[in-house]
């Protein structure tokens, strides 16, 4: 069996590539960031290398899909916070990629244990956020797992955010102050426990660790959280009850959204923003705007943090599959960013539909692995199609790279199907077609607010029909 190693893309890619270069691995492709997930090493030609989103790596190692991996300690601890008996060994601190996790708020709160309304914490690290709340003995709390932009949530949409930053000072740029430092982290070399105990991977480990500088890491000065009380973000009092709160997407969805809003005669100041401003101004009275991840919008609308949001039907479905009685519904099909949500397998499999999948699963011993960014859609698909003993592996993008070795089925979105074909994969089922949509809540609201919402919906409807 070949040794399998999971390497990070994104933030750690450059430094990791440099270290492996120094160790003489002679990698092709790894430095070039997009689209190639399978680099090869001249020094270890038999080793199988894959490039993953950093967050996926601890899970891949713990599941035993990979023997070794490199990722930062924050994602390792996020896994261990919920699953302390994971089969994962921290082999060595690699001393780069420094950062820290902070719990931050607009101002330092008094007693965290207070009784009353739940303390709301937004975070990309929901398990660590829950552990933090329990450790602080909070009597009541809610954790909002978010895909990103956690810093944009306090104070209106969450009381605190648990987020990563280089230093406490960086939080001030987002108008936040640290409440507590949760973790200092670096990149780590990690191993699957059984691989670590039984497989011959010492040579590979030694070659990576050999590149580490011999100096002890300089002891970091302990920062005193909560001392610097800078209020750069104005504590806007409660938004008036009749104000309509609109969430707009960041990332790829910005361009189609802007062009739609323009056609509808709705003008925004500083969106998309070059400075990362998440609170652009809008030219309609009684409406405020915040820019967050489209993935996080349905949950935020369900919780009454926003009245309207521009997201995709894929993320709305994902939300409703997790919470079937949620008050969120689609108000308007924006007919933009059309993709299909599809079930994908390797071309090597002689399976053409879900019936074929069932036969395949019935004939095998190991559990069937379904990888997806859409955990709840994937889970429901597996349940509805009676896929027997299955596991859903959550992923954070680049899901195509999971097949065929690390998963058996993907639930993915695709525009043209070309990326899927390029990875030697095939579509066996289409779950639904997703386009951009305007979502809102069915919960009761005031007349004034209802009229304002109706005005916005009407403007957008006309703009879509005029196209």
């Amino acid at each position: 069996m070949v040794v399998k190693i999971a390497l990070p893309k994104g933030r750690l890619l450059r430094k990791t590539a440099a270290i492996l270069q120094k160790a003489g691995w002679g990698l092709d492709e790894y430095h070039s960031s997009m689209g190639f997930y399978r680099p090869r090493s001249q020094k270890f030609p038999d080793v199988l290398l894959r490039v993953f989103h950093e967050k996926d790596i601890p899970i891949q190692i713990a599941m035993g899909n990979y023997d070794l991996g490199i990722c930062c300690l924050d994602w390792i601890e996020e896994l261990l916070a919920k699953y302390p008996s994971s089969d994962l060994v921290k082999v060595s601190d690699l001393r780069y990629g420094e950062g820290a996790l902070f719990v931050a708020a607009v101002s330092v709160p008094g007693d965290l244990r207070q009784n009353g309304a739940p303390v709301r914490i937004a975070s990309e690290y929901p398990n660590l956020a829950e552990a933090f709340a329990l450790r602080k003995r909070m009597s009541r709390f809610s954790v909002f797992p978010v895909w990103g932009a956690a810093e944009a949530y306090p104070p209106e949409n969450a009381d605190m955010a648990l987020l990563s930053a280089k230093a406490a000072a960086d939080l001030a740029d987002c108008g936040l102050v640290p409440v507590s430092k949760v973790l200092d982290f670096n990149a780590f070399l990690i191993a699957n426990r059984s691989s670590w105990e039984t497989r011959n991977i010492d040579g590979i480990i030694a070659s990576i660790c050999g590149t580490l500088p011999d100096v002890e890491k300089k002891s970091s000065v302990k920062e005193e959280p909560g001392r610097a009380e800078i209020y750069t973000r104005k504590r806007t009092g409660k938004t008036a009850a009749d104000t309509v709160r609109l969430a707009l997407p960041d990332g790829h969805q910005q361009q189609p959204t802007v062009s739609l809003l323009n056609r509808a005669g709705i003008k925004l100041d500083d969106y998309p923003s070059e400075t990362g401003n998440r609170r652009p101004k809008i030219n309609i009275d009684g409406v405020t705007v915040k820019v967050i991840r489209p993935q996080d919008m349905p949950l935020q609308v369900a919780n009454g943090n926003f009245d309207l949001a521009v997201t995709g039907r894929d993320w709305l479905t994902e939300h409703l599959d997790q919470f079937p009685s949620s008050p969120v519904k689609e108000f308007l099909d924006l007919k933009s960013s059309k993709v299909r949500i599809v079930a994908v397998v390797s071309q090597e499999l002689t399976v053409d539909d879900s019936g074929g999948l069932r036969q395949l699963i019935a004939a095998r011993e190991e559990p069937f692995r379904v990888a997806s960014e859409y955990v709840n859609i994937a889970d429901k698909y597996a349940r509805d199609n009676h896929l027997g003993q299955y596991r859903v592996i959550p992923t954070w993008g680049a899901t195509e790279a999971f097949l065929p070795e690390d998963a058996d089925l993907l639930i993915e979105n695709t525009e043209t199907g070309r990326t899927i074909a390029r990875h030697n994969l095939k579509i066996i089922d289409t779950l639904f077609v997703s386009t951009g949509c305007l979502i809102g809540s069915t919960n009761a609201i005031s007349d004034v607010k209802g009229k304002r919402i109706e005005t916005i919906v009407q403007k957008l409807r006309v703009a879509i029909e005029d196209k």
Partner: protein
Amino acid sequence: MKIQRCKGMRDLSPAEMKVFRLVEGICRDACSRWGYQEVRTPTIEYLHLFTSAGTLTPGMLGKVYSFLDWDGWSGERVVLRPDGTIPVARLYTENNEDGGLARLFYAANTFAFEESAEKTRERWQCGVELIGAGSAVADTELITLSLEVLKKLGLKGVELRLSHAGLIKALLEKLGLSPDEQHRMFDRILDGDAGVLTEVSRESPEVGNTLRPFLSLKGQSTEFLRDQKDVLARSMPEISLALDDFLRTVAVLDELGVKYRVNIASGTGFEYYTGIIFQFFISKEKVGGGGRYDALIPSMGGGDVPASGFALYIDRLMDLVKPEVFVKTVPERVLIRVKSGGAVKDAFELADSLRSTGYIAELDLDGNKTDLKLVIEVRDQSPVFTLVDLSTKKKFKMSTIDEVLKRLEGEDGG
């Protein structure tokens, strides 16, 4: 593909269920006679019921099964019940708005994630809560009731150990710890770390010396504690108050001749305990315990209602109880064999009559050899019934159900 049960979960076989029901039945019977009424709370509760100030120790909170419900979009989690007392206190608070005395008991499962597969993650306990009474007599009622149950289960060598949560808290305060540290140390003691008090007392020698006898792991005699009371009343009134409360209960136990050991430093239990803590051991294994928790119901907004309770661990008692000691008159089992197709109706009627007369009647479905002693063959021709007594190899032919019942009586009587 082989289907297996979940790791850390346990099946109870027919033989084990028999012992389970025996233990549960004796608990239920004893509780009922003392005037306690049975309740049942849901398996799923809100997490915040257990995280609210002073309910479970962090050690226990780190092991709860928590998840988002199907309508959990607010991010608030629910749990599989990690403890039996808190839900019952909630039930009381919801239903007894005016307070008042309630004697409640339950047999319920609790869930805690245990790393090792040997420990089970689902456990059963019989719990008793005495809500609305705060006296030494109330404490004694619970201790004597639990001892009575253990005795009725035929268990010998039961050791009763006493401690006092209020006394532990007062000692920690006196030892000069910050409120946060006091809290942490208290939790460690409750999670079973008996060395905490000794360890802490080393750090503040002058106070430590006065209090050393309280902190030792060896245990304390009540005479000693009574002597200390007067000394402490002047120098450390907070400790004296808690000690007083403890000694009041001990005095009633003495009057009733209940044997016990006092060891203040070892107070395993729940963070909601405020007064006496009692634990039952049989050859070093803990089989149950309880204590006073006067602050729990006030913290839930249920008014100033004192309460105390205990739980006996059914899983552990099942391993210790010898079921053969309990000779119960078990109804006799009879097997009914349908020998010809037209006799099914007669067979069902016979079985029905046998059951209402007190027999266990089983229909033979596989025609295999049986280990039952009494078999009745049923045919659609006269004589319809043939009773075969396999122990004596005798056969009796009869044509009515009444004759069969009479004949069986004769067989029973010998």
